[in-house]
Every structure is written in C-alpha cells, then in structure tokens.
C-alpha cells in the first residue's frame, strides 16, 4: 500500500509539473503538443548533468544542478516552438509534433555518440545514474520520499498564485483568450506568448527529469518518455486548464500509472490473474475514456492555436 502511495505521488508529480507547463503555454494562446519531446530533452539534460558530476558531490548540489540542467534544456528546446509558432506563425500542432519526433531521436543519437566515444564497444543509448539518484530520495521508514514531490507542490502553489493573483497571470490569460483585446490595452502579445511557452519548457524539462528518476536508476533514451507528455496534456484538459483541478487530475492518472508498477504487491489484484500489460495500458485507456466523456464540456482558452496577427479584427 505504501508503495502504491509512493508511486502515485511521484508519477502524479511528473504529470502535475508537465500539465502545469502545458497550462501556462495554452493560457498564453499556444498549444504545446511538444511536451513529450520537451520532457525527453529535459531528461537528457538532467541525466547528462548527473553523469558528468564527479562522485562525492554533495546531494544538494547534485539536486540543484540536475534540476537546473533539465530546466535549461527544456527552455532552450521549447524556444523552437516559440520562434516557429509565435514569430513565424507556423501551425502549432505540426511544430509540436515535430518537437516530439525530434526529441526522442536527438536524445538517442546524442547519448549513443557519447557512450561510443567513451567506450567504442558501447552502442547503447542508456545513461546510468545509480549513485546520483540517491540524492533525490530519502527513505522514511519503508516510504521512499522523493524531493520532486516537494518541487511539484511548490510549482502548483506558484502556478496558482501567478495565474490568479498577479498581473502577469491576468495578462497571460488575456492573450490566450482574446489577444486583440490584450493588444488594444497595450499588452505585447508576442512577449506574453514567449513567456508562456518558455515556462512550459521549464516545467516540461523538470517533469522529464522527474520521470526518469521516478522508478529506475538508468534510462534508455530510445523509449522517450513513453507518452507521458501526452498523458500530461490529458491531465491538463481534464483539469480544465485550472491548476487545482489539474492537481486532482494528476493524482487520478498517477494512481493508475502507479498501479502498473505495484499491482503484484496486492494479493487480490494478483489473484485476478490479469496480465501486467493490462495495467500498463490503464493510464492511457483511462485518459481516452475520460477525455471522450469530458471534452465536450471543456473550455479551452479561446484563442489557443491561432497565431496572433495584428491585422486580424
């Protein structure tokens, strides 16, 4: 049971971080379908940092530098989406999809190149981080506490405050709803949208490193992040683009994802004799059902997906 809670919390943290990232981007008016790719690149940044840090670095330094690397990688990578969709008015769906394809592929090539350079016989795209990973977790009894849970809660509070209590949030949401109205009161829509996308890059990158640190001590980058970026989008939609509801949605989806890791630990679940792959499918199936049932009522930011053009009335 404790294990289930532990996994639920950590997977929820991933989903929460990434979904909040998507939330900022979409509130600014840019659909960020590239979260999946941004997560991969963020994970790559964090993993490379962990690999490079010398053994014996203090835990807090490892944590901070790894998070910083993931954020920087995510932000830089998301700027591709920003420049293409905001400045060049490209189709946001296509750019996002391109980011996803590029993310996994680029990460794989990059890691393979590094591995082969270090050891000519090593052709894998795997980064191992057994030692540094310990910096992120703290055992409390049999419960494995992970610092990302705290990070996720802090980000949640920040997101809520920024969106609803600051002028930045008010302006950001105006740009996603009615950019012409925002522009008419002197708000620079381009800047706000850039800000929205870059924040989503930062949070996406964070979510990426959080995801690969969640259960394992090494990561094969061919796998990308197994659709977690898309799950996060589902969480965001289910959460109606509102931080608190997104948090609840993330918990629900996190629970289903956690089940696939720990179902064997529950006697009554093992007794059902359902193949493990069914549990693995669960979060994705649930997201399909939930979205099919709720998307009719969903209220997305009105102007999202539409490039802002000064001449439009």
């Amino acid at each position, binding site marked *: 049971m404790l294990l289930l809670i532990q996994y639920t919390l950590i997977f929820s943290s991933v989903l929460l971080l990434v979904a909040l990232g998507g939330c900022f981007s979409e509130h600014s008016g840019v659909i960020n379908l590239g979260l999946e790719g941004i997560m991969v690149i963020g994970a790559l940044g964090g993993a490379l940092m962990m690999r490079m840090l010398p053994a014996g670095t203090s835990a807090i330094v490892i944590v901070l530098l790894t998070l910083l690397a993931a954020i920087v990688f995510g932000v830089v990578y998301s700027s591709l989406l920003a420049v293409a969709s905001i400045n060049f008015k490209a189709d946001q769906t296509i750019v996002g999809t391109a980011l996803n394809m590029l993310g996994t592929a680029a990460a794989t090539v990059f890691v393979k190149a590094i591995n082969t350079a270090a050891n000519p016989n090593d052709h894998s795209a795997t980064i191992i981080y057994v030692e540094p990973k310990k910096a992120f977790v703290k055992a409390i009894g049999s419960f494995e506490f992970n610092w990302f849970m705290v990070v996720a809660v802090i980000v949640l509070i920040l997101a809520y405050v920024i969106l609803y*209590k*600051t*002028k930045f949030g*008010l*302006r950001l*949401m*105006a740009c996603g*709803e*009615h950019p*012409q*109205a*925002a*522009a*008419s*009161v*002197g*708000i620079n829509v381009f800047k706000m949208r850039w800000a929205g996308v870059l924040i989503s890059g930062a949070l996406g990158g964070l979510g990426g490193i959080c995801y690969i640190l969640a259960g394992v001590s090494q990561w094969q980058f061919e796998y990308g992040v197994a659709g977690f970026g898309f799950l996060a989008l589902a969480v965001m939609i289910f959460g109606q683009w509102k931080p608190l509801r997104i948090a609840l949605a993330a918990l629900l989806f996190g629970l289903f994802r956690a089940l696939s890791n720990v179902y064997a630990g529950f006697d009554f679940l093992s007794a059902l004799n359902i193949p493990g792959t069914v549990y693995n499918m669960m979060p994705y199936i649930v997201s399909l059902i939930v979205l099919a049932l709720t998307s009719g009522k969903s*209220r997305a930011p*009105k102007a999202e997906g539409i490039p802002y053009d*000064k001449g*439009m*009335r």
Partner: protein
Amino acid sequence: MDSPYAIEMLHITKRFPGIIANDDITLQLKRGEIHALLGENGAGKSTLMSVLFGLYQAEEGVIKKDGKEVQIKDPNDANALGIGMVHQHFKLVECFSVLDNIILGVEPTKHGFLQKKEAREKVMALSEKYGLHVDPDAIIEDITVGMQQRTEILKMLYRDNEILIFDEPTAVLTPQEIEELMQIMKNLAAEGKSILFISHKLAEIMAVADRCTVLRKGKYIGTVETKNTTVEQLSAMMVGRNVNFHVEKKPSTPGDVILEVENMTVASKVHKKDAVKDVSFKVRAGEIVCIAGIDGNGQTELVYGLSGLEPLKSGKILFKGQDITKASIRKRSTSGLSHIPEDRHKHGLVLDYPLEYNIILQRYFEPEFTTKAGFLKRKPIREYAERLIQEYDVRSGQGPITIARSMSGGNQQKAIIAREIDKAPDLLLAVQPTRGLDVGAIESVHKQLVAQRDAGKAVLLVSLELDEVMDVPDRILVMYEGEIVGELDPKKTTQEELGLYMAGAKRDEVKA
C-alpha cells in the same frame, strides 16, 4: 494649451492594397465637444480612427495633440496621450470579470500582487459619477451588450483618458440603451472629456453631437455645426445624393400561408427558463411580418428554432404545409428558407474564406457549382460571385477573392443579403438585416425586402430599430419575455404604443 483643439488630424492619407481608405482627411476635435464622424460603410471612418489609435500608420499627414505634433505608433502611445476607444467589436476577454477587463494592462499591484480592492473602489466611484451601472464581478459572457459597452467606457475612464472615441456605439444597443448612452456621452463632455462619435445614424448625431465631419468614399466632404444643419443635408453630404427615408410600398396582398408556427417552445442557453414560450403565428406569401421587441426577449431563440440552429422543446413548424420541425438546416435551406442571421460573423460568413466561397456557401453542392466527381467548378463560381457583387453593390478590395474578414461590416452584410435573396426563397428570415448599415444601404435593404414581398414571397423581419419596425412591415408581432404579447398594424399604431408593448406594460391575448 493655447490650441482650442484636443486632437487634430491633418491631411491624413492611408492606403490599402487596391483601395485608398483615407484620402487627405482633416479632423479637428475641440476640447469638451462631442464631434461626430459620419460616413457610409467603407467611407474610411474606422480606418481614420485606427490611425488615431495607433493600429495603423498613415502614409501622409500629421496628428497634433493640444497643438503639438505627436507620433502614435501603437495603442500604448495613444493611451499615453489620453486617447481611449470603444471599438465596434468590443475588446473584452469574455471569461474575465468586468473588473479584470477594466484593469487589464494597467493593473494596480503591490509587491507584484494584484490589488483588486483598490481597483474596485476606483471603478465603483467612476461608475457612480457617470451613471455607468456595472456589476464588477459579473463575467463578460453573462452580461448584456449594454453592460459590456459600459465596461468598455469604464476602461477608458479608468485610464483617465481625455479623448474618447466611440466606434459605432449604438449599433448593438436597444433603444433604451441608446438613450442611456447619449446621456452618458453628454455627461462625459460636460466633465471636459472630448468625444469622437463615429456613426451613420443621423438622428443620433443630431441629438448628441456639437459638430459633425462627413467622409465619403475615403474623402473629406466637410465639417458642419449640427445646430445649423438638417438630417437631409447631412445625408446628402454622406451619400452624395438625396435619400428617401420613408419606405415606399403598396398595400400588401397576402396569399397562402407559407410559415405556420404552432406552440413553439425553445429552451434558453443562458438561463434555466424557456426563451420562447408557446408561441404561435403565421406568415403569408406577399407580406412582411415583423417581430419587434427589446433585445433578449426570445427573438434570437425563435429564429434559431426556425432556422434549425436549435431544436424545439415542443411545438411544430409548418413550412409550405410541410412539417419541418425536425428537418436539417440544409433541408430547410434548399426547400426555400433563407436566413439573414443576426450575428454575421458567427452564422453568416466563414470569415477566412474568400467572398466567392461565402457566396456559394449554401449552394456549393449544386450541379451548377460542383462536378459529378465532386470538384468545385471554379469558373462558374467566380462568375456567379461577380454577378452578385455587381448587382448588390458589394464593395471589397479584390472582388471575389477578397477574404471576408478584411471587408467592412456593411459590405459583409450586403454579401449575405445578396446570397440569401438570390437563392429565390419562399420565406426570407431577416434578422436585424440593417444592423450596422448606413442610411444609403438601409434604404436599399428595405427596398429589397419590399421587392421580395411584392414578388409574392413571405418575409419575416426581426428588428430592434423602432423606425424600421414602424416603416417596413405589414404586421407587427411584439415579443416580450418569450411570448408574443401583441399584434399591431403599423399604419394604426404609434411608437409610444409599440414601446409600451415592448416594455411589457401592455399586452393582448394574441392568437395570430
């Protein structure tokens, strides 16, 4: 402050591809006056105001504030100079509260946090001072157009703007709201604000403005004092010829019943009550029936029910004897029902399509426009569009290939009217067909409605304009709170009596 003018726009010229929108136009706004800017659709009023507001840059000419030349490169510059504008299409974020919309862009903050309490006090004080009633916590999409407009005005006042531009502010208002707005504008001018009032409604200009500048087809015609002029003179300046305000028509000769509505009830999308309650009426061939009423009394939903945009909760619609209660929108359209919708952007046009595609929007599948294999026939479409553009005088920059969004509101409306009338319908459902049109265009729309009637078609007109209600139809049905409360003969009734019915102060038991 030695110049008597708050703002001067001198010799402004602004060109767009294929069109000179403003050709050497001069406009001088005195401090504390209400100055009307009059012109037909496409005369260049909105362009001129966009130049003043920094949305466009003029190629030639200078703008002076208090006698000093200024550069206005974007709305921020305009704001800094104290220029505020109520746009024709409101610039409000629909899911925000009134208060949030007012403070957007000039939010008071403390340590980075919004100080809404402070803002609310200022808004309430302004609202009190000028009689602009709003509920600061209401969400924009839930409130009336009138309150949305008051929000826009408060936006300008909150920014301490001295020069207020109203771009066709009355186009979307009910008669009562127009009265109120006029009073508000006078109050504002009395407080020393300078007001630019863009309109093509002559009566309003005569009632509220001190001076009036007239534009025609992008050119400056002249500036006159309203107390020294007449409606006729102004309209001649605007249109370039004399306009007939009264609709000429012969007595009607009603024929067969074309449309019969029995006990129609339509649910409301806004509130839980029914928007249309058990309404029955008939429209015959060769007559114009007008549904009059104050906006929001169920007319919109009644039309949705007739056109098929909303299902009926109960009741029956017979069209030429056929039950079309459950028929699809296309079925209704192809069997002879034409619909000039209330909201031309939402239901009338695909704004990002070229004009020619908008013109064949309901007919593209007909053999005339589509090959058997399913390909569009480009040449017949182009020719058909060109014919309609010619016949109905739809003005646009590039003819059939103009993107609908880039056209002026009046010409968008003309395109819709052309499309709907040219379908040769049996019933023309015209919902506020003259909304946002100038006198010249209104005259021609009214003529077309009467021509349809004389050709033996049935016309159901839904209108909020009292003049139109009194002048055009053969019968008036007044709607109040979803019910038909009176049937009036326009020749025998008065505006006052009509007003009483519209306000719900008087009602008959009607079985039309």
